[in-house]
């Protein structure tokens, strides 16, 4: 393996792999992606993998999600079948007082060009008859969908490899320094040098930032998910809370806990989730649960992606966000523009790490 690269990407989850792949499309850069484990071992492999737009607010964030969702069909043409399905998204509500909020959301999203409808109970049940008759209404948007995260990341990596990207797995980064204008990335397996560096460590971004003397203001949030046995197809939409995969399994979950990196499943949350499942879809009462899993997700302190140059560190970049599955096609595209041309087609100013004002000296 080489020692010198144009770009080193640290992290091979959905964000890092997408950036590496999109960077490699030009075939002009020598790229190395390093991961402390293996793709899918972290956040990207423990998600329901919705491509979810419709209640992302404010408008500028909704827009980012929408453009990314729009890129999926083309991405699939390039890297292969990632089982992307634009199913439409339904976010049910159970109380009449939520209808007003729903109408406001629809109004706001219209400004960003995201079409959100507010459905009555009957309209919801017509679209998705398996949902509970106790539902009062729902917001609905055609643009939402889901993807198979295992295929998505696998195919990002395969396509990147085909374009010459090198990958180093099970290789934790132990230090990052800048020497003579180059980044020196020290790993368990040796030292690597690059002109440009991208931190895409997901929930582990904080410790990567520390190597460069910067604080990455993110939290770790555990989400727990239940998976049923394969059931014959009966849910055709992505529901806020669950979806049915191609193989018939239903993935259910909507929990958030701040428990550091603890990835255990706890029955407290699992039982709550099972109750939610039955409340949403009464027929699930009889379904068998085969397994549960949990993932540690990134939550930037203000909820919005951290994307772009690392202030004060020339040629250093960061991409850390919640909703990496939804955003990965666009983030890969924008970061490629940034690293190659120095400017981006969508202004990343408001996503800059600068907004937190937490930069320390790089020493």
């Amino acid at each position, binding site marked *: 393996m080489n020692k010198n690269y144009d770009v080193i990407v640290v992290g091979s989850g959905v964000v890092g792999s997408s950036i590496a792949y999109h960077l490699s499309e030009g075939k002009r850069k020598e790229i190395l992606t390093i991961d402390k484990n293996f793709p899918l071992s972290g956040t990207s492999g423990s998600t329901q993998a919705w491509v979810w737009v419709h209640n992302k607010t404010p408008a500028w964030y909704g827009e980012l999600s929408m453009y990314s969702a729009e890129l999926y069909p083309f991405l699939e043409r390039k890297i292969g079948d990632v089982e992307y399905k634009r199913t439409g998204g339904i976010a049910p509500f159970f109380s009449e007082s939520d209808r007003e909020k729903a109408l406001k959301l629809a109004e706001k999203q219209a400004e960003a060009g995201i079409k959100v409808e507010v459905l009555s109970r009957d309209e919801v049940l017509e679209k998705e008859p398996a949902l509970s008759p106790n539902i009062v209404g729902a917001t609905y948007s055609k643009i939402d969908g889901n993807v198979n995260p295992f295929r998505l990341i696998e195919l990002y990596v395969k396509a990147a490899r085909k374009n010459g990207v090198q990958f180093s797995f099970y290789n934790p980064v132990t230090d990052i320094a800048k020497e003579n204008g180059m980044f020196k990335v020290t790993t368990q397996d040796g030292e690597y040098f690059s002109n440009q560096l991208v931190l895409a460590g997901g929930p582990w971004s904080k410790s990567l930032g520390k190597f460069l003397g910067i604080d990455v203001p993110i939290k770790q949030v555990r989400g727990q998910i239940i998976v049923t046995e394969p059931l014959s197809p009966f849910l055709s939409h992505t529901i806020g809370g669950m979806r049915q995969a191609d193989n018939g399994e239903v993935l259910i979950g909507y929990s958030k806990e701040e428990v550091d990196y603890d990835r*255990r*499943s*706890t*029955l*407290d949350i*699992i*039982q709550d989730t099972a109750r939610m499942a039955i409340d949403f879809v009464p027929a699930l009462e009889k379904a068998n649960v085969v397994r549960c899993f949990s993932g540690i997700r990134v939550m930037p302190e203000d909820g919005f992606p951290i994307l772009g140059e690392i202030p004060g560190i020339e040629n250093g970049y960061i991409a850390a966000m919640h909703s990496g599955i939804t955003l990965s096609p666009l983030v890969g595209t924008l970061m490629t523009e940034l690293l190659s041309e120095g400017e981006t087609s969508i202004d990343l100013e408001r996503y800059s790490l600068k907004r937190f004002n937490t930069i320390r000296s790089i020493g």
Partner: protein
Amino acid sequence: MNTDLLIVGGGPAGLNAAYKAASNGVKTTVIDKWFTLGGQLKQQTQFYNNLPHHFSKQRGFQLADHLVDRLKALDVWILENHTMIGAYQDGNVGVTDGSDTFPVNAEKIMITTGAMEEPEIFPGWTLPGVMTAGAAQILINRERVLPGERALILGSNDFALEVASQLHDCGIKVKGIVESGSELLCQNDELAVKMRDADIPVLLNSVIESATGKGEVEEVYVSTDGSKSLYDVDLICIAKGMTPILEPFEIMSCDFTYQAKLGGWLPRYDSTFKTTNPSVYIAGNAAGITSMGGILLTGEMAALSVLQALNATSSEKIEKEKQYLWDELYRIESTENRSVRDARLDVIKDLHYETGVQLPAYLDSVFGGLING
């Protein structure tokens, strides 16, 4: 629900532990996922003649009945058809009865879920007619169903030959014991003699090349030193050994270690049979694959440790009892499976070395030179 001691798994280790704990006044609950207690011992028809001195020699199913019956006089809460499926954030065990799932709050938890049989694969192994030796044994001894007419046994350990012998006694024609190694693994000479008397050939240096058939096993190719022979059988019993069941221990955040002689990965534990989770104890085959004597004794020792931890009875009395039990374990495992005895000691020493807790003096006297050697 609340209990002092929750025992997960009502096989011989769990039942013997429950007896010891409950007869010393500890509020004990036993859960088992099946409808009847006794575990795998329920379908063992063979005679156990190397049990601890305080048990009389008897057949497996009789021993199972004995272990269950003597709990009846005691205040033990038995929950059959109850499965441990997970844990709560606060460490309580989550148990389901098939219609509800609820937390069990126990001072101490003992996991005696035993072991499972190791599979072995070859082209055609998924055909009906291929099963583990244990499954064949359940069919003949419990369900009273013959699993086939003509059989091959894959593997040659004690259990393989035991099941071969039971199949033979039921009138099934056992056409061979297929062993990949160059010698029989079975340590029990009586069983080996029985194979000879029953005209059951032992095929050494042999592997099953493939099994084929329309909807079930019909023809099996066995390769011996590179030459192939065809067997017309409808049953293949796989007996490649057992491995401890790990899942409940993982849920309780116990650490694991690897010991090939004990069946592979298993929870780490110390001389009191306490795992790395201070609330969780272990016994039986879960603590390393051993003989019936070893299963009973480790259950009893783990129960004594729980008594000690709960201050339920005088420590001096317990230590004396433990010494006797260790002597018995040493005696039985020295005659039956010395490598298990030594590997178990390695597991125990390893954890004591790490925690800095001294091994009890009687272990020194029991194991002598092995401790420091």
